């Protein structure tokens, strides 16, 4: 991997220079924009995510929408939710907020924890390294789902769920980042410029900050970029299991879990959140992939 790319253009510029990178950046930007503008967009549509429209439902045949195609109409751009009549578009764009918020928060948490533990293990003495590495292994061998269930049950409902989800995802998934940071740090600390820095008397903290961290940027950014979509999927999964944000707050995983009942009678209601989630994840994965290629142009590195 080429590490001599400081004088080259910034990562963003390099991404923009790649056609795939440009598409991914635009898509991700669009998704973020939609989430930010959720109130504006729903106002444009004239709906909100929580209002019931019982009059649009066919109560006698199970509570699905009266109109075909999931009740898509000029008033309800993506139709309405079966059994409630809530507006799917509004729930979708508000759901994007939760999805992005949790993905971003969890990624940030994983990054910070991973950097902290990885750097401490990589730069510390043998005991610190052994201790922290064993701890990392320990966390990796915990079955995460039970811990998610337990923690979500233990923490009272009054604690904001999105924050809790971030904390749980960060707390359970920082280990891979820590491993990468540690491995890279171990490589970097053997480099002679680090020895040189120690020689002229730089403190460990200064070495970490000035010599190691910049070198970690490329692998860590690459890895972290791919953590965003996997956190997104994890959040959707927990919501799908009913462990995510609680109703009536909309979230994609939750929409999917209720939608599974309606595959036969109202396929539109399944496809909309499924495809949205898929598109978002793909956009973020593509961005991560493009970042990796931009950072490591030879494309052989992992």
């Amino acid at each position, binding site marked *: 991997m080429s*590490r*001599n790319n*400081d*004088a080259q253009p910034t990562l963003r510029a390099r991404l923009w220079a790649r056609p795939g990178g440009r598409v991914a950046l635009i898509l991700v930007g669009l998704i973020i924009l939609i989430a930010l503008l959720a109130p504006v967009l729903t106002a444009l549509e004239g709906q909100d995510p929580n209002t019931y429209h019982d009059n649009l439902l066919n109560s006698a045949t199970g509570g699905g929408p009266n109109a075909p195609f999931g009740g898509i109409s000029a008033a309800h751009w993506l139709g309405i939710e079966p059994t409630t009549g809530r507006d799917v578009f509004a729930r979708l764009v508000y759901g994007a907020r939760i999805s992005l918020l949790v993905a971003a928060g969890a990624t940030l948490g994983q990054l910070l924890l991973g950097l902290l533990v990885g750097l401490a293990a990589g730069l510390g003495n043998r005991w610190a390294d052994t201790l922290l590495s064993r701890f990392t292994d320990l966390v990796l061998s915990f079955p995460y789902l039970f811990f998610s269930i337990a923690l979500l049950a233990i923490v009272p409902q009054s604690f904001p769920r999105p924050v809790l989800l971030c904390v749980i995802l960060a707390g359970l998934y920082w280990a891979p980042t820590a491993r990468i940071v540690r491995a890279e740090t171990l490589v970097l600390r053997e*480099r*002679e*410029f680090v*020895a*040189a*820095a*120690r*020689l*002229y*008397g*730089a*403190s460990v903290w*200064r070495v970490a900050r*000035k*010599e190691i961290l*910049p*070198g970690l940027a490329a692998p860590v950014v690459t890895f972290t970029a791919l953590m965003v979509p996997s956190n997104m999927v994890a959040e959707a999964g927990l919501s799908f299991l009913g462990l995510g944000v609680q109703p009536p707050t909309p979230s994609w995983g939750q929409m999917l879990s209720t939608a599974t009942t309606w595959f036969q009678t109202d396929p539109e209601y399944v496809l909309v959140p499924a495809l949205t989630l898929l598109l978002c994840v793909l956009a973020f994965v593509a961005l991560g992939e493009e970042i990796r290629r931009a950072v490591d142009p030879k494309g052989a590195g992992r």
Partner: protein
Amino acid sequence: MTSTPILTVEDLRISFGAVNALNGLSLELEPGRALGLVGESGSGKSAAALSLLGLHRGTGAQVGGRILLHPRPTGAGEIAEPVDINTADDETLRRIRGRELAMIFQEPLTSLDPYHRVGDQIAGVHRLHFRSGPDEARARAAQALEQVGIDARSKYRAYPHEFSGGMRQRALIAMALVLEPRVLVADEPTTALDVTVQAQILQLLGRLREEIGLSLILISHDLAVVGGNVDDVLVLKSGDEVERGPVREVLTRPQHAYTKDLLNAIPRLDAELPTRIAASAEPLLKVTDLSVVFPSHRGSAATTAVDGVSLELLNGESLGVVGESGSGKSTLGRSIVRLQKPTSGRIEFAGRDLGSWRGKALRDHRRDLQLIFQDPASSLNPRRSIGDSIAEPLIVHGEKDRDRLRAAVDGMLERVGLDDSLYHRYPHQLSGGQRQRAAIARALILRPRLVVCDEPVSALDVTTQAQVVKLLRELREEFELTLVFIAHDLAVVRQVSDRIAVMNRGRIVELLPAAGLHEAQDPYTRALLSAVPELPVA
């Protein structure tokens, strides 16, 4: 000169995109002859070597001209008609490779497949070209191994990582031999090896030439290496031919200025020593019974890198430390500046025990002891500008004023012969020599009293090497430095040292005045001295 040539190269041109590596090389190789291709990095010698086997194919490099391979006069071999390697089809090329033209490479460490047994790899090549059965191939591989001096019975089933560097290079030569090729292209075959091993490999190549009449194309940056082992030599510079002729002719009566420069830059054991600076009588550094043991780790046994070394260094003195890889010379140097914690023994610096310093006190005292590393590409942070890197030690030691910092760095850059416009450049934008100068500037900016130079010039081209050595000599005088100069090359060490310590297996086997090398008594020192390839005397 009447026999048919094996190989005729006409106007060979190689370029990588916009960069021209070779601008029209022509040569002819006759059976049994040995040709040396010599040049510094960037001369195009390796590109030329690879093109002879068509190895640029599929890499995006453009290769022009003709490389004509003539058939064997006996009619045996893979071709009946002359073949232009540049235009030959893949299948023909595949058959020629190894069978007619075999190649060995600079990095014996990585040139063998780490996942397969050495013997199997050689047998595999035989099976590929001769469609031989497994038993025959195995027998031939064993035979080839024996031919290069490897005990086939015990080593056939070994993996490459179980071999030393010299053994691996021998194994590669065996791989070439098993196919009975006519030409062996050796691309810097000994550069990565110790000087004594280098001598053995060169000797082996010479023997093979004699025994089986192999033609040789030997590529090297080192005129001295080429000197004793080829018939003709061709000097390249930046892709252009500079001079060619019989080797003795070129080395003793070079016509071209560049050839002369090259020859002059080669450090010689018999060169006159520069004038000495008088050292004061007080000792600055006293090492007593120093040992460094690396504990066993993940299966490897514990190794004693430094084994009970004692020495004394006077203020202003320059001590050369010479040894081959694994001799413990670098570990000794690192222990002196306390990059490596000794297992036992005592190091006194200016009368104080180095080991007694801890934490902040240690960091403060660091400024007196600096080390210049072998590879400036590694010792300078690739993500920091040159100026930044040089200023950093001052910042660490409390200088905050930007103007003063800038002035100090500019002054230092100038002193080491770098333009201050390089301040904002990054290491990869500099040449090797410039980088090492910058690394020297960083080491000296804190005005240390003792500087350990750990192979400071071995990664550099020979002409640059000479310049940097000269710079170090000047700086030593100007800054009144006490030097420990570590290198594998006796001739280089001799240029900057008052005394020379020869190390082998962690011990100092002999400590001699620089001027008295020829009086060496220790057999190891004598072996080292005799392994240094010698240039014919002008």
